[in-house]
């Protein structure tokens, strides 16, 4: 009996670094962020209590609403497109056939490129005068816009470049497809179901939990992944068209040393994310009629 308990304790002790990490990197910072949102803090002086002051400042700052709208644009436009692209790739490259290994590897390539390098390559691609994108459009006789310098095109351009690094979602959906038993398709075939019906009734329901998980993860990652392109490529411009919430937090906290304001924006961002996630959850549960059995 005693040996059982020591064995048990030894198993749990393997969890110690992980739990300490969660405490140090997530739980304490989350509590701290919550507290900071109610203080004035510049990183040097002792924090001073402000109550709801930070939130009121944020609410009356028109830039906050612009940044929020920009971030929401990205969630509404880029996240579903990324998900569709990953799903399309997974379906196309699912069946083992000659060359499919190479195609899969190539589809993963953009996900391997470091964010900073990826941003700078696309800065070149979008270059209005010398960039290859406009060279191609020019050769085809199409209009050659100034992309990142144009107010209406800067955001869609950043969304376009976000469509390629989708390797993780692609692999996860590919694994999801592999776990669908063949018998289901055989039975559907015998019953005379069309390919579309088989997809609609078998593939999609099985993938739904994965699609939900991926869309939630992508929404969260979007807040992070919009920072580097906006920071390195557009600096939030033109006219704040690419000012996303994380860039605004960076500017408030690390450039303006208004940590309290930054924390308040982050807290609002967190609440909005939570709301969107619940919405996504509800959408998948209600709209697609998936049930666990």
């Amino acid at each position, binding site marked *: 009996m005693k040996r059982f308990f020591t064995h048990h304790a030894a198993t749990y002790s393997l969890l110690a*670094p992980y739990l300490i990490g969660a405490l140090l990197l997530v739980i304490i*910072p989350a509590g*701290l962020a919550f507290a900071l949102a109610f203080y004035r803090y510049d990183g040097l002086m002792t924090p001073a209590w402000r109550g709801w002051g930070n939130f009121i400042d944020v609410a009356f700052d028109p830039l906050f609403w612009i940044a929020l709208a920009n971030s929401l644009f990205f969630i509404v436009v880029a996240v579903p497109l990324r998900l569709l692209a990953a799903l399309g*790739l997974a379906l196309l490259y699912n069946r083992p056939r000659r060359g499919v290994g190479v195609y899969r590897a190539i589809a993963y390539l953009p996900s391997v490129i*470091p964010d900073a390098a990826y941003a*700078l390559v696309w800065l070149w691609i979008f270059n209005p005068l010398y960039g290859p994108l406009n060279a191609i459009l020019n050769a085809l006789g199409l209009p050659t816009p100034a992309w990142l310098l144009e107010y209406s095109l800067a955001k869609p351009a950043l969304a376009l470049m976000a469509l390629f690094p989708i390797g993780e979602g692609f692999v996860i959906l590919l694994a999801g497809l592999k776990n669908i038993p063949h018998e289901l*398709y055989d039975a559907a075939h015998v019953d005379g179901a069309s390919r579309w019906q*088989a997809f609609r009734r078998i593939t999609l329901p099985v993938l739904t939990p994965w699609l939900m998980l991926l869309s939630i993860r992508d929404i969260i990652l979007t807040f992070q992944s919009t920072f580097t392109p906006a920071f390195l490529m557009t600096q939030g411009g033109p006219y704040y068209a690419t000012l996303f919430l994380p860039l605004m937090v960076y500017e408030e906290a690390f450039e303006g040393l208004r940590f309290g304001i930054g924390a308040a924006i982050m807290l609002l961002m967190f609440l909005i994310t939570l709301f969107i996630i619940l919405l996504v959850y509800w959408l998948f549960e209600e709209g697609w009629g998936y049930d666990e059995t």
Partner: protein
Amino acid sequence: MTKPEPTHRPRRWSWRRAGASGLFHVAAIVISLAFVLPLVWMVSVSLRKTGLTLPHTIQWLPQEPQWQNYLRLFQILPMGRYFLNSLLITALGVPLSLLFGSWAGFAMSQVGKRARRRLLAFTVILMMVPTTALWLARFVMFARLGQTNSYIPLLAPVLLGASPLLVLLFYWNFRRIPLETFESARLDGATPLLSWWHIALPQARPTLAAAAMLAFIFFWNDFITPLLYLRSQRLYTLSIGLMQLQEMDKTNWPLVLAAAALVTLPPLLIFLAVQRKFLNESWLSGK
């Protein structure tokens, strides 16, 4: 496009099937082109002559590739130093992440049902917390501990196995090993640490390869954390060097993209080395 055909049905050659296969390869090649073009352009521009007016047309390969552009990088900025710094962080970060991540995944696969469910839910929640929402508070915390301008904040995620996703990957892998195997090892007097090393890890080689690659990308590709924490130039990483270079001369595209290619090369090589281990049928289907 969906693949409901079972693979075990005997197939005969037919025009229709050959046409479908041809169509598949055409589509796959067009898609693949879109996915490699950024890399191709990165390298092709990095080999152009610097200081010349750039051509308005696409030049796939410059007439005289300027390999010395890559040497110039190391003369303009201490890129060698940055490279070693990135390498040091990654060389410490990857093995420690695999160690702690696989420990956590292993322990999760061994504890009782209730504890396991709670730990799983906890891990999923950790994965769902937006890191962006924690930047600032983490920074204030590490600043209080006197750990800005140090590699501690950059390496701290090793405790979480780089990302909770890796912990889940290990957990899923270890769950597939029958519990009786561990039970009999325990009766033979094996400690959990011994079971982890001798039973669990040897059966997780493809997962280890995939996790090592993800951890490598996590630490090597990190741009935001070094940007927030590192203040002195001797500590800078390659990604920060890339930003510095771009700030020095925004129009010097050959040099900027040569630096981008330099930062991209190590994770690319790692990916090409391990991709076969996890992009194949057996790992993907979890068998």
